C-alpha cells in the first residue's frame, strides 16, 4: 500500500539537482497523514492502493557519481511521472502508474 508525494511544479530557479514536476519526493504507506506543507501548489499526493511501497522504491532512486563535480549535475531522481497523471489525492492503479513513468 503506497502513497506518493510528487512535485507539482518546476522550481522557480532551475538547478540540475532540483526536483522538477513529476518527480517523486517520498513514498509512504496507505493512510499516511501527510504534513501540513505537503500539499498544492508545490506537492501532490498520488494514491496507489494495493501496492507495497517497496515495489515503488525505484521511483526514489537517485543517480550518483563518485566525482562531486559530476554528481552536482545529476538530477535527484532517475524517473518521474507524466504530468497528466499527477493530481492531488488522485487514486491510480499500479498498471496506470507504471505506464506513466518516464525516464529522466
Amino acid at each position: 500500500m503506497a502513497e506518493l508525494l510528487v512535485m507539482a511544479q518546476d522550481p522557480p530557479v532551475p538547478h540540475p539537482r532540483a526536483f522538477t514536476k513529476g518527480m517523486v519526493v517520498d513514498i509512504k504507506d496507505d493512510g499516511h497523514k501527510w504534513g501540513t506543507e505537503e500539499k498544492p501548489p508545490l506537492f501532490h499526493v498520488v494514491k496507489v492502493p494495493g501496492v507495497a511501497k517497496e515495489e515503488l522504491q525505484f521511483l526514489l532512486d537517485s543517480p550518483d557519481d563518485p566525482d562531486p563535480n559530476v554528481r552536482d549535475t545529476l538530477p535527484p531522481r532517475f524517473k518521474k511521472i507524466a504530468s497528466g497523471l499527477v493530481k492531488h489525492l488522485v487514486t491510480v492503479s499500479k498498471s496506470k502508474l507504471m505506464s506513466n513513468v518516464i525516464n529522466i
Partner: protein
Amino acid sequence: MADNIYKTVDLGGGGDFSSLAAFIAWLYNNYNPLDRNACAICTVSSGNTYGDSAAWGSLPSFSGNATILIVTTKEHWFNGIFSSTRYYLATTPTQPTYWYQLVFCRVQIGAPGAPITGTIKAGLFLSGVVSSATTAVQSDVVANSMIICTTNSQTAISCPYSVADPLIIRNLLLTRPGYTGATGIYAPSVSSAIFDGNHIVRFTTPVNNGGYGSTYYNSTTASSISPNTEGNVLNATPTFVDETNWNYTLSINDTSAKNLYQPPVDTLPHGGFPLALNHNGITGYRFLYSSIGPTEPDPQNYPSWLIKVVNTDGGGDFTSLNAAIVWLYNK
C-alpha cells in the same frame, strides 16, 4: 535578517513534512536564495519507520550567513548510543559546497547495520555518524560528535579548509573492532586549524595536517606522546559500556580517558575531551554537560513555567509589572 523558519519533519506523519527531502524541496522552491536561518526539527511520532531515506534534491543557495539547521527532538536525538529505532538519516545529505552552512545537531546519520556510503558535507554538533565511505565526513566544523567507521582504510574527517580556522574538537573518531582506519583527521597543512580533545581510535594515521596541531614528539624518549599537547588521545583503545551493541558510553573500567581534562585542570582552550567523564553510578562514565552523551541530551524534569498575566486594565493576576516583580521577588 528575516524571521527564522521552523518546520517539523515527522516520519510518522502529522508534522509539516514527512521527510527532509520534502522540507528541502519546499525550501528550494520558496526561499532561494535562502535569506534567513531555517530549522527542521525531526521526529517519529508514530509507526516503526525511523530511517529518513528519501534522497534530497538541491539545497537553495545561501544569502549572507544563513544556515540550515537539522535537529531532532528529545525522544529521538542522538545520545551517544547508536540505534536503528530512533530517527536517523538514512541517506547521504547532498550538498557539495556548504560545509558549514548546513548543520546537523543531535542527529544520527546512518545506523547499526546501515552505514552511510557517501561523504557527509556539513557541520556536525553532538551528532553521531555510522559510515562506510572512504571519507566519512568532509567538514570544517565538527564538535562533540562521534564518527564510527565500519570498514578498513577510511578517513573519519577531512577538512576542506573552506573557512579560515577549521575547528575539530571533542570528537570520538573510531574504526570498528577488527578494522583499521587510514586517517582520523586530515587537513591540507592548515596552520590555523584547531584539533583539540579528540579521541582517535584504530587509525593508522590519527592526524595528518602536515605536522600542524597534531603530533608532539618527545625528544627524550624518541616517541610520540599520547595524549598529545592538543589533547587528542591517539589510538588508545577505550572501553565502552557495550561497543558490540553500539553503546559508546565510556565504561567505568576505561583507562584511556578517565580523569583526563576534567575541570578545573582542563586547560585546553576548546575544552578537553569528548568523553570527559562524570560517573553516573550505573552504567559507567557519562559525559560533561557540554559534551555529547546521555547527561545533557537526556530529557530532564524541568519545573513547569510560572505564567502570570499582567493586565493594566485589571482582571489579570497583576495590574502592573512592578507588582508582578515584587510578587516574584517575595515568592
